[in-house]
């Protein structure tokens, strides 16, 4: 990837995301085991392996088309709460990019904002509910700031990843109000939210791939 991003760049980056998710599968499952049902790593692994296989087959010529394929693949392979949420995020991001063949920092920030909108529309979680929104919302904000300041794709994604990582960390003391962890009530405090952690992972892998070009 360079200062902008083509469909091809995106495919390369998604392979890196897939590898990162597979690498961190056990960690995600372990987080979900503490406050959920111990499947988030497995769900993400299944989904992003399917994504890697899907983007390997050629045909998507725009970044939006790639993201759309990712979204539908995640929806049809992940299941659980994270499947429709991640899926919707990618679908909304795709829609926001329309059919341009190359995206810049501003478009990336808009795509993240759209993704967040999709997650919130589906899951109705707010910041502080201890969900992936706690990573994605600050990521979208940071991306917007970076893009407004003229950041290119690597810069915007780096800002988003860093904010998502901080956001994921911020879920630790929270009491969950959405998703399976909410059944735990007070007992959910003291653990990272798995979906927030996976969101940070995905964004970090995208940022790293963007920066490596």
């Amino acid at each position, binding site marked *: 990837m360079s200062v902008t991003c083509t469909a091809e760049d995106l495919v390369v980056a998604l392979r890196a995301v897939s590898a990162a998710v597979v690498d961190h599968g056990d960690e995600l*499952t372990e987080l979900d*085991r503490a406050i*959920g*049902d*111990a*499947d988030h790593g*497995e*769900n993400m692994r*299944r989904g992003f392996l399917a994504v890697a296989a899907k983007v390997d087959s050629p045909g998507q010529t725009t970044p939006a088309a790639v993201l759309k394929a990712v979204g539908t693949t995640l*929806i*049809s*392979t*992940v*299941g*659980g*709460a*994270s*499947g*429709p*949420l991640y*899926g919707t995020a990618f679908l909304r991001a795709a829609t926001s990019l329309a059919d341009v063949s190359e995206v810049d920092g501003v478009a990336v920030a808009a795509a993240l904002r759209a993704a967040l909108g999709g997650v919130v529309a*589906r*899951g109705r979680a707010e910041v502080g509910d201890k969900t992936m929104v706690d990573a994605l919302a600050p990521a979208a904000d940071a991306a917007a700031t970076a893009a407004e300041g003229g950041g290119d794709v690597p810069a915007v994604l780096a800002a988003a990843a860093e904010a998502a990582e901080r956001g994921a960390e911020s879920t630790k003391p929270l009491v969950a*109000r*959405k*998703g*399976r962890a*909410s*059944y*735990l*009530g007070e*007992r959910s405090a003291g653990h990272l939210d798995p979906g927030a952690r996976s969101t940070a992972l995905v964004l970090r892998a995208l940022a790293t791939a963007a920066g490596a070009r």
Partner: protein
Amino acid sequence: MKKIINDPSTVVVEAMRGLAAAHGDLLRVHEDPAYVARVDAPRRGKVAVVSGGGSGHEPLHGGFVGLGMLDAACPGAVFTSPTPDQVQAAVAAVHGGAGVLLLVKNYTGDVLNFETAAELIGAEGIDVRTVVIDDDVAVKDSTYTAGRRGVGGTVLLEKIVGAAAERGDDLAACEALARRVVAGVRSLGVALTACTVPHLGEPTFTLAEDEMEIGIGIHGEPGRARAPLEPADGIVRRLVAGVVEDLPFAEGDRVLLFTNSMGGTPLVELYLAHGIAERLLAERGVRVERRLVGPYVTSLEMQGMSVTLLRLDDELTELWDAPVRTPALRWGA
């Protein structure tokens, strides 16, 4: 982990093959996307009743596919809700032109995936309705949480709504009936041990040798309170009290009592517990008119049980008694 499996990632599809081999007279299975369908579906003019959810709760839901109950069931990965395309494909395979009723247990994942499926199905011009069941009194219900979970009551819902669809009730009637069942059913469970999800390979939580978890969810989600293990009388008293006082069920109410094993609790203990529940309800003047006892909504090999009460009236009783012919529930046919 000690399990009779080959590979965690093929457990569900291999089990489906066994289900199909064992019950080819009742159902057929489709592997990708995965669903179980009634062998004689689609039935023209009949509302299709479809459910599904994570695997590991067997016989729920695949074991309830057949005459007088479900037209199709969509098994997700173990403890993971199915995906929308499974539901979409199942509906395509079984809908008979009279609309589709989706019965969904209230978990974020299940609700979101079925919601997406319903959008896709509706977009194909099929009349589709969704009823969410949330009978677990262990969870505090609030608009600020994910809400109560769907647990044992699901079996009663599927049986009763399935019977209504079988006798020819239309979609609106089936939906209204389903909402009536949901309004009148409550459950509470307890775990004595944890269960082990195949891909994880170790128990999802730990309970000390002298502890139990009251209000356990069917995925091993923790419940209301961890408490010292008690004799059966005390355990069942807690479950019955929690259920009765929630709705509440009152003196003179006619009910169906469902004493469910989480999987690892032997039948001898379950019947013992059932006897206690009957006694406690009699003491409260609640009239048990129908009962179901067995492992019907399980959590893999978890030891534990749940008590479900459904308020009965003449129509619900008649629909409960109506013929059913599925792998796990069968009478009158």
